[in-house]
C-alpha cells in the first residue's frame, strides 16, 4: 500500500515541475533555517567539552540579595563558595573559578588582549580539558601560589607566533607579571563562558584579598560534583537547605537567593527569581520556530489545495469505487509526508552548506557548528510536524469533494 502511495506521490511531483519546485523550495529552506538554529542551540547547550561529567554536576553562578526596595545580584564571591558551599557534605569535588576578565600585554610593540580565569585545584579534576602539550596546574602549585598558567591554543598562536614549537616552560607576561606555561589546551568558544579563557591561573596568585573580603558578591562560579548521578538531587537539596540559613549581610535585605543548577538551567537563568529562565527560553524558541514555519505552511497549504483540485477526477474515481474519506485523507497525508521528507533531504544539504559558510565566517571564534545525530533527529521531528501541519487541511478538503462534481471535471 505504502509503495503505491509512494509511486503516486512521485508521479504527481513529476507532473507540474514548477509547483514541485515551489513546494520543495519552501520546505527545504524552512527546514534548513530551523536546522541551523538547532545546530547552534545544540552546540551551545549540549556540547560537553570540557565538562564531561555534566550529568553529575551542579553549577552555582548567581547570587541575589533582595529586600523591600533594594536588590543586588551578581556572581558569588570566593568566600561564599569556599566557606558556605564548600562545607556541603554530598559533593566529592568542588571546582571554583573566576569569570573571565581581560587584560592587555604588549609583545614586540603589538597589543594582545588576554582573557584570564583563576581556578582552584578541583577545577582541573572536574573539567577534562584536552591538552595538546603539558599538563594541568597541580594542587601543590596552587597551594604554593606559583606563577604558572595553562593557555589556550589561540593564545599560544597569538603570543608566540604560528610556528613556535612547544611552549611549555616558556614565560608569558600578563598584567605585568610573568607566568610560566605548564600546559596548552584546546580552544573553547566564548559561548561556553563558564569555561572559556585565554589563560588559566591559580586563584592564589590573584590580586583579590581572599582573607578580608567576606561579602557574598564577587565574580566566581562553583561546580559541585556528586559521586554519581543518583546523588545529584540529594546535593541540590542540601544546597537549597543551606541557603536560608545564611546570615543576612545587611539590614536592607531580607532574603538570599542562590541556586545550584544543572548546566542548561543555569545557562538560561535570567536572574529573575519569580520567572523560570527555562520556561522563558523555551517559549521564545517555540514562538520563533512557529513564526518561521507559519508562512511556509500556509503557502504549502495553498499550493496543496490547488494541486488537489487538479486531481479531482482521480479522487472521484477512487470514491466511486468505494474508497472512504479516511483512506483518502490517509493517502494524502502520506504523500505530503513524502514530499516534506524529500524537502528535508534537500534542507539537510542546504544546512550543511550554510553551516560551512557560518563556520568559515567565524562569527564566534571556535564555535564549530555541525550536523550531528541529535540535530538530525530534531530535523526529522520538524519534518513530521511540518508535513502534518500542511497536509491535514488540504486532505480534509479533498475528502469532502462530491463524487459527481469530481468526476465531471
Amino acid at each position, binding site marked *: 500500500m505504502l509503495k503505491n502511495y509512494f509511486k503516486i506521490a512521485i508521479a504527481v511531483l513529476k507532473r507540474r515541475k514548477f509547483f514541485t519546485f515551489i513546494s520543495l523550495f519552501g520546505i527545504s529552506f524552512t527546514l534548513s533555517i530551523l536546522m541551523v538554529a538547532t545546530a547552534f542551540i545544540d552546540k551551545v547547550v549540549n556540547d560537553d567539552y570540557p565538562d564531561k561529567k555534566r550529568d553529575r554536576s551542579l553549577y552555582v553562578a548567581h547570587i541575589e540579595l533582595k529586600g523591600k526596595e533594594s536588590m543586588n545580584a551578581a556572581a558569588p564571591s570566593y568566600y561564599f563558595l569556599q566557606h558556605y558551599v564548600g562545607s556541603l557534605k554530598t559533593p566529592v569535588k568542588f571546582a571554583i573559578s573566576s569569570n573571565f576578565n581581560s587584560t592587555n600585554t*604588549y609583545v614586540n610593540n603589538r597589543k594582545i588582549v588576554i582573557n584570564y580565569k583563576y581556578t582552584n585545584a578541583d577545577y582541573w579534576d572536574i573539567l577534562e580539558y584536552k591538552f595538546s602539550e603539558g599538563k594541568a596546574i597541580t594542587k601543590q602549585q596552587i597551594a604554593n601560589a606559583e606563577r604558572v598558567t595553562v593557555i589556550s591554543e589561540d593564545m599560544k598562536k597569538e603570543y608566540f607566533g604560528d610556528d613556535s614549537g612547544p611552549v611549555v616552560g616558556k614565560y608569558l607576561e600578563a598584567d*605585568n607579571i610573568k607566568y610560566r606555561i605548564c600546559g596548552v589546551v584546546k580552544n573553547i568558544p566564548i559561548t561556553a563562558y563558564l569555561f572559556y579563557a585565554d589563560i588559566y591561573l591559580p586563584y592564589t596568585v590573584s590580586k583579590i584579598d581572599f582573607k578580608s573580603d567576606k561579602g557574598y558578591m564577587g565574580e566566581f562560579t562553583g561546580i559541585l560534583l556528586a559521586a554519581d548521578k543518583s546523588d545529584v538531587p540529594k546535593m541540590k537539596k542540601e544546597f537549597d537547605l543551606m541557603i536560608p540559613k545564611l546570615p543576612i549581610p545587611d539590614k536592607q535585605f531580607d532574603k538570599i537567593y542562590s541556586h545550584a543548577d544543572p548546566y542548561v538551567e543555569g545557562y538560561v537563568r535570567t536572574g529573575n527569581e519569580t520567572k523560570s529562565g527555562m520556561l522563558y527560553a523555551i517559549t521564545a524558541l517555540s514562538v520563533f520556530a512557529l513564526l518561521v514555519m507559519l508562512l511556509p505552511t500556509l*503557502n504549502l497549504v*495553498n499550493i496543496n489545495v490547488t494541486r488537489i483540485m487538479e486531481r479531482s477526477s482521480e479522487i472521484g474515481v477512487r470514491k466511486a469505487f468505494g474508497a472512504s474519506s479516511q483512506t483518502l485523507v490517509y493517502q494524502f497525508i502520506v504523500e505530503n509526508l513524502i514530499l516534506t521528507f524529500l524537502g528535508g533531504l534537500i534542507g539537510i544539504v542546504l544546512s550543511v552548506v550554510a553551516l560551512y559558510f557560518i563556520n568559515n565566517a567565524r562569527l564566534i571564534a571556535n564555535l564549530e557548528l555541525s550536523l550531528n545525530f541529535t540535530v538530525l533527529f530534531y530535523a526529522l521531528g520538524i519534518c513530521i510536524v511540518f508535513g502534518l501541519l500542511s497536509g491535514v487541511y488540504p486532505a480534509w478538503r479533498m475528502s469532502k469533494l462530491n463524487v459527481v462534481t469530481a468526476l465531471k471535471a
Partner: protein
Amino acid sequence: MFKHLFKLIWNKKKQNSLLIAEILLSFMVMFAVFTFGVNSYRNYVTPMGIDYEHVWVINYNNSLKTTSSDSLALFYESLLRNIKSMPKVIDAGYSSNNVPFSSSHSSSGIKYDGEEFDRVNQFTVDDNYTNTLGAKMIEGRWYNKEDKAGKQRLTVINNSLKEKLFGNTTALGKYLTYGDDKAKIKIIGVVNDIKFDGDYQVAGPSMYGRADTSAYHWLSRILVKVSPDADAAFEGRLYKMMANTLKNSNIEIEHLDNKLTAYNKFTLVPLIILSIVAAFLIINVALGIFGVLWYNINKRRGEIGLRRAIGASGSSVSSQLVTEALILTTLSIIAGTFFAVQFPLLNVFDLPAGVYLTAIGLAIGFIYLVVIACSLYPGNQAAAIYPAVALHEE
C-alpha cells in the same frame, strides 16, 4: 466593475481566505523588518555626539587599602596629572563604568514638577569629560573646579532629557529630584546627545553627575584622549605606568573605536539574521502567490475565452486579473494595518510613532510591489488566450 470583482472573489472565498492570510502574515513580517530597519537607520543618521577616535579607556579597580576619601582623592588626582603629563596624551578624565559603547548601564527614576520619569541614564564623570570625548554644550556650562566647594547638588542633562522635561524652554536653573528623594538638584547645563549604545541605538535621556572625592572608592575607568600618532609602544608605556602605580589592580586598556565596532555588531547581527529569514519567507510567499494565480488562470480559461469572444481586449483581461489580486492584497493590508497601528497607539517598545508609520508605509508599498510582480506574468498569459481555442476546449 469592483462590485463584480468582489463577487468573483467571494465565490472562491475558501481559497482566497488562505491567500489573504498569507499576504497578511507577510505584511506583518515586513512590518517588523522595516520597523527594525527604519529605527536603526534613523539612529544611524543622528550624529554620534562625541569624537571617539583615539580615545582609550583604562579599566582598573581601586585596590588602595585606605578608607579616607581625602587621601584617595590626593592619590587619584596625582595619577591623573601623571597621565596628562605624558606625551601624546591630549586629555584624560575619570568616569563611572558606563563609558560609551560598554555593556554597563545605570539608570534611575527622576521627578520634575510632580511628574515621574523612569529609566534616566546616570553617569558619574569629572570635569574633563566633555573635553576628552569632544562633546559640545548646547546651553549652560560643564563642571569646573569651583563646583567642588559648593553645597548645592548640580547636574548636567543631555538634550533628549531636556526636550522631554522642558520642550523648547530653557532648562538652566531648574530643579529636579531623584524619585521621592528630598534633595533638589540644580541643572547647570545641557550637553548634546551622546549615542553611548553605538551607531544604531538612540541616545536615551541622561544625567551627568560630578564625581566628588568619595566616588574614588568605586570609580574604575579613565578615559584618555591621545594624539593620532599614539601607537602600541606608547600604549605599552601607559600600561606599565598604570600597573606600577596601582600594583594590586588588574589593568586593561581598550580603544573606543574597537568597542564601537563590537557594540554595533550586537545591533546589526539580529537585523541581518531577521532580514535573511524575511527575504526567504517573502521569496517563498511570492512563488506561492505566483503559482496559485497561474493555476487559477488555467482553470478559468473558459471564462476568459468567453470574455475575449464578446469583445474584451487582452489588456482588460490582464488588468482584471491583476486588479483581483490587488483587491485581495488590499483586504489583507487593511487587516494588517489595523494590527500594526496598535504598536504606535499602545506605545509598545517605546519607539517614536514616526518609525512605525514609515515602516507601515514601506511594508504596504513592498507587498503591493510583490503582488503586482507576481500577477503580471499570469495576467499576460491570460491575455494571450485565444477565444477560439479556449472555447473549443469547453
